[in-house]
């Protein structure tokens, strides 16, 4: 029962994926209204030659903060999982 449901689910998802691949814009010719603005104005607005960096740290800086937070969370989580059993009672 579970296997059949899983197989049907998998089939649907794969059909959706192939439909996506066929319907999406032709490879190499994406629409680019937002990105064109960034390519044109990144140098004057952020003073950065590397536009990817200007997107990462300026235009979408908040994502990067979130991403740094995720790394921080994961590190805290990993250290927490492997903590010594009597870490703080000794204090």
């Amino acid at each position, binding site marked *: 029962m579970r296997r059949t449901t899983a197989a049907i689910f998998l089939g649907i998802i794969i059909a959706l994926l192939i439909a996506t691949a066929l319907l999406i814009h032709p490879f190499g010719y994406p629409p680019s209204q937002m990105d064109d603005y960034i390519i044109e104005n990144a140098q*004057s607005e*952020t003073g950065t030659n590397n536009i990817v960096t200007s997107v990462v740290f300026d235009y979408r800086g908040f994502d990067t903060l979130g991403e*740094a937070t995720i790394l921080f969370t994961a590190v805290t989580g990993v250290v927490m999982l492997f903590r010594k059993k009597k870490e703080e009672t000794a204090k």
Partner: protein
Amino acid sequence: MMMSKIVRTISNLLLPFILTYGIYVILHGHLTPGGGFQGGAVFASGIALFIVAFGSYNIQKNLKEHHLSILESSGALLFIGLAFGGIAIVFFYNFLVGSPILGHIPPSGSNPGDIWTGGVIPLMSIAVGLKVIAGLSVIVLVMALASSKTEIEE
């Protein structure tokens, strides 16, 4: 657990180059491909190589987990601090563009590149770089220690 002498010698030889390259990628993130995350990952891979070659128990004496955690928190604080720096206008405002510090604006179009540009972006790169170096090293170190501990117990 320590790897053979060949591995240790080679990693000793390679390490300075890997670390230097990591720092270069972090510092030139606003001019050439790279940035805080990429450079930090390169640097941390050097540390991971070191941990693998010399064994986590031996590394542990020199590279303490809580020191790295402090470094990581400082990197994160520096990053969010720089973001807060622009709050007089808007959070994350690039307040150093046009100022005397890192404030040059490059000529538009293709140019040879000027290190003194980008405003807070190079600083943020450094902050994120610190964070990623410390974070990835902690993950590798802690997981290596934990797995070697199970080996000893068994």
